[in-house]
């Protein structure tokens, strides 16, 4: 007899990932992986999701056979990679993907936009000055801008040469 309890793919926060799936099934061949849409409506996606918060699937899943359990029960989790519906928060739209192997969630990743209204947390184009080679040239100019000259250094300045020529 097959009995399975699917854990809710509920709270995808950094703190509490999917707890796991308890399955009690007879080992069969794993279902072919297929991407499909799982409704992650109750999830609160965050870009800090990372694999260091690995799901505690194994420890709670006392009843499942470790490696070969098929998740292809009606309310169970199928093996494969699934993308949730995008969830929009103030920083933009975040989409979460989960990977299920042998009925356990083995990886979670989140993608978040790099453009649009995510300017507050995503890298924005930072205006920069370009570096160039410092040139030293003589050219015909009407005036010269420089650090404030003293009266003495004015006399030796290019500006005074221009002023003298026009007087």
């Amino acid at each position, binding site marked *: 007899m097959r009995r399975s309890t699917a854990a809710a793919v509920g709270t995808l926060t950094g703190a509490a990932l999917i707890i796991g799936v308890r399955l009690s099934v007879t080992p069969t061949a794993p279902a072919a992986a297929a991407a499909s849409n799982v409704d992650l409506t109750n999830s609160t996606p965050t870009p800090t999701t990372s694999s260091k918060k690995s799901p505690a699937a194994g420890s709670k899943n006392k009843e499942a056979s470790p490696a070969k359990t098929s998740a292809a029960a009606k309310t169970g989790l199928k093996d494969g990679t699934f993308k949730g519906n995008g969830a929009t928060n103030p920083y933009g739209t975040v989409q979460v993907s989960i990977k299920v192997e042998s009925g356990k969630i083995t990886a979670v990743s989140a993608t978040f936009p790099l453009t649009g209204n995510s300017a507050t947390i995503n890298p924005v184009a*930072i*205006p*920069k*000055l*370009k*570096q*160039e*080679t*410092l*040139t*030293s*040239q*003589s*050219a*015909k*100019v*009407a*005036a*010269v*801008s*420089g*650090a*404030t*000259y*003293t*009266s003495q*250094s*004015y006399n*030796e*300045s*290019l*500006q*005074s040469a*221009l*002023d003298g020529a*026009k007087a």
Partner: protein
Amino acid sequence: MGTVVSIELADDQPEPELRGMIDDVCAWLHEVDARFSTYKPDSEVNRLQRREITIAECSADMRHVLDACADLWRDTDGYFDAYAAGPLDPSGYVKGWSVEVASARLAEAGSLRHYINAGGDIRMRGGSPDGEPWRVGIRHPWEADKLSWVLAVAEGAVATSGTYERGDHVINPRTGKAARGLRSVTVVGPDLALADAYATAALAMGEGGISWLAKRAADGFESAIVTDDGRAFSSANLPAAI
């Protein structure tokens, strides 16, 4: 003030009228000096500094300058600081502002084609008499008779702050010591008071001034910078002459 001012009026008015306009600019600059010079014991700025008068009793120009310095202190994250050396000294703003006002007065008097260069800070209008923009060179930070950039500006302001003339006159308010890192900072934009203050603030910031100035491009202020070790930087839309 000890600042040498060069004025070129390229208008068609009769010479006596042009000379009258120049006299008016000189009178204005002397008025500014009397009010704002920290070297004159009885200047308004010193009397305010000694609390002989209150802000409310100050002239409209003084109150404007104090307000502008407060705004700049905020906008430059404290690097433009009229109190950086201790007692109140708004010269970093007054220098550019007084020329900005002088150019506006010339325009009101009918001069639409001119430039005023006060100690290296320039406000220009109308382009040069040959029909081209005014060609303005930026003095090379090591070679006094050479230029590092040539700009073409018909209308606007060019201000340069640097350490090669008066030495370490710009203080970094965070360290309390002379600013280090940048040898020459030139800002080009629509207003000489702001261009001058931004150039001075960036010099005070040191290398951090390079990226701070890059952001001012959003408000129309372009820049050209040379570091103490000879690296040169410029903004994308610096109006360089071809």
